[in-house]
């Protein structure tokens, strides 16, 4: 365990050193503030509208951005060391291969979670400062849930990135696979579900299965976690309308999210153990 933490600490510091963490913090803060003040420009308003509406928009945006960042931050975790020739050196040290992968996974997840907390936390603090009506406990609960689930979503894709990194032979291939992974989970999966919905025309079997299909993609689970908690009327009618007949217990969603964070990472650890170096 100690060895894992040593590796994780090094990766965490590296992400700080090469400005990943700071850049992400600023990006998250700007996104949140931009959405809060200009999110309802389409409706003819400029200025802070409501906290829940902001969070709903942030969820939609986060579902696009956070997977991409998770993949970018970690796709070269192992294959990068192989390219640089440091992998053999690392493996000649007294640590198991699983420990190396686990350390890198935890380090990058930590950096991403720190950026999420700092960026969104800062944005919310500014919002609360400037909009006294939004200073409610409810708001903090929602943003807390959002930050936690965003960190978990990041972990899912850091895990996927680790898996890609273990299984590829060079960095460019890993980058390509990471982009494909992002496209499939963020865009194509939902499109496929929509197509299914349209083609089947909503027969009973499909109606029963459909809500569970959403659990197969961590991005959708992330949306569910945040949007079901916000309830109706926060600009998320499309999704809640689709799934209103089926309430997802928060505990189930949390467990599914955790499983999605652990599964690709565990697969990466196992695959790396069996790899010839």
């Amino acid at each position: 365990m100690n060895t894992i933490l040593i590796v994780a600490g090094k990766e965490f510091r590296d992400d700080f050193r090469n400005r990943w963490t700071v850049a992400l913090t600023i990006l998250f803060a700007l996104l949140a503030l931009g959405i809060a003040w200009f999110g309802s420009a389409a409706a003819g308003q400029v200025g802070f509208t409501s906290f829940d509406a902001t969070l709903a928009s942030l969820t939609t945006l986060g579902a696009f951005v956070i997977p991409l960042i998770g993949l970018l931050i970690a796709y070269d975790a192992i294959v990068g060391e192989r390219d640089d020739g440091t992998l053999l050196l690392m493996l000649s040290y007294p640590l198991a291969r699983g420990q190396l992968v686990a350390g890198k996974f935890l380090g990058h997840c930590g950096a991403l979670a720190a950026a999420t907390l700092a960026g969104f936390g800062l944005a919310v603090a500014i919002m609360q400062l400037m909009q006294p009506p939004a200073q409610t406990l409810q708001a903090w609960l929602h943003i807390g849930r959002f930050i936690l689930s965003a960190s978990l979503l990041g972990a899912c894709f850091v895990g996927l990135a680790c898996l890609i990194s273990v299984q590829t032979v060079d960095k460019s291939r890993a980058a390509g696979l990471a982009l494909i992974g992002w496209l499939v989970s963020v865009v194509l999966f939902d499109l496929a579900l929509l197509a299914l919905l349209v083609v089947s025309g909503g027969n009973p079997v499909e109606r029963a299965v459909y809500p569970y299909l959403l659990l197969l993609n961590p991005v959708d689970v992330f949306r569910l976690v945040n949007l079901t908690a916000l309830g109706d009327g926060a600009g998320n009618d499309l999704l809640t309308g689709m799934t209103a007949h089926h309430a997802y217990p928060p505990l189930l969603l949390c467990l599914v999210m955790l499983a999605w964070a652990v599964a690709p990472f565990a697969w990466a650890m196992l695959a790396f153990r069996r790899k010839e170096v």
Partner: protein
Amino acid sequence: MNHAIEFEALAKRYGTLAALDGVSACVPRGQVIGLLGHNGAGKSTLIKLILGLIAPSSGRLDVLGQSPWRAHALRRRIGYLPESATFYASLSGRELLDYLARLKQAPRGQAQALLERVGLAHAADRRIGTYSKGMRQRLGLAQALLGSPELVLLDEPTTGLDPQATRELYRIVGELRADGRCVLISSHLLAELEPHIDGALILRQGRLLAAGSLNALGEQAALPARLLLRPHQHAVDGLLIRLDARGLPAQLRPDGRLELQVPRAGKLPMLRELLADPAVVDLDVREPTLAQLYDWLGAGQRPAAAEACA
């Protein structure tokens, strides 16, 4: 347990390709051993096997008394300098050594001592990306010595080093030997390596051509020594005839000296005779070098592997 490394019928196959094909040898503790062979001879495979990074396909391998495959704790007692070592360019030398020292559970403060020992103390806080090739190699040596390992594996340690740095490296290797540690050096630079090693493992195409002390290998090969004679100017012809009569045809070199090959067994009697010969003004004996031994082994029709643990 007086051997640092012992292997018997050790083989590593990748599909149909045999990177190592049934090699057997022992490496004693407290010695510096050269691991020699062309590219693709199996040196890297053997090093990876010793480090426990790959599993042997068959055969037995003991490193410091245990099987190294996936023996993580064992690697605390082994130091390794990879070929043309590269490190995290964004770290400083000190940060890298501190990180690796923690991974190896080496005493704190050892990093600083090692930086001084390899002559990098002045650059310890610079980014490794700014280091020259020689400095990176010295940093690599420093990390290989973290945790005072009993066995040190150096893969092509002197490529890119200037003569001064090379001498420094072999000085440290000498200190390790004096400390009773085993050092395995893989290298192509036979002439440079020869004065510093006690024995050699010579590989070719996954097979062990020879293993043992340099002395024993020399005896086994029975390569002739070369003699260079400077004769009296007017006595050249007479000397040539006398040597020819002894069955030792000599060649006249452009510098006026005579060169002849003397079989190992008859070397000393021949020398006594020549020393007493008034026609000989000066005499120079060239013992067979490691490079000649290597060529002799490589040129042969794939001689059988040397006896294990002779």
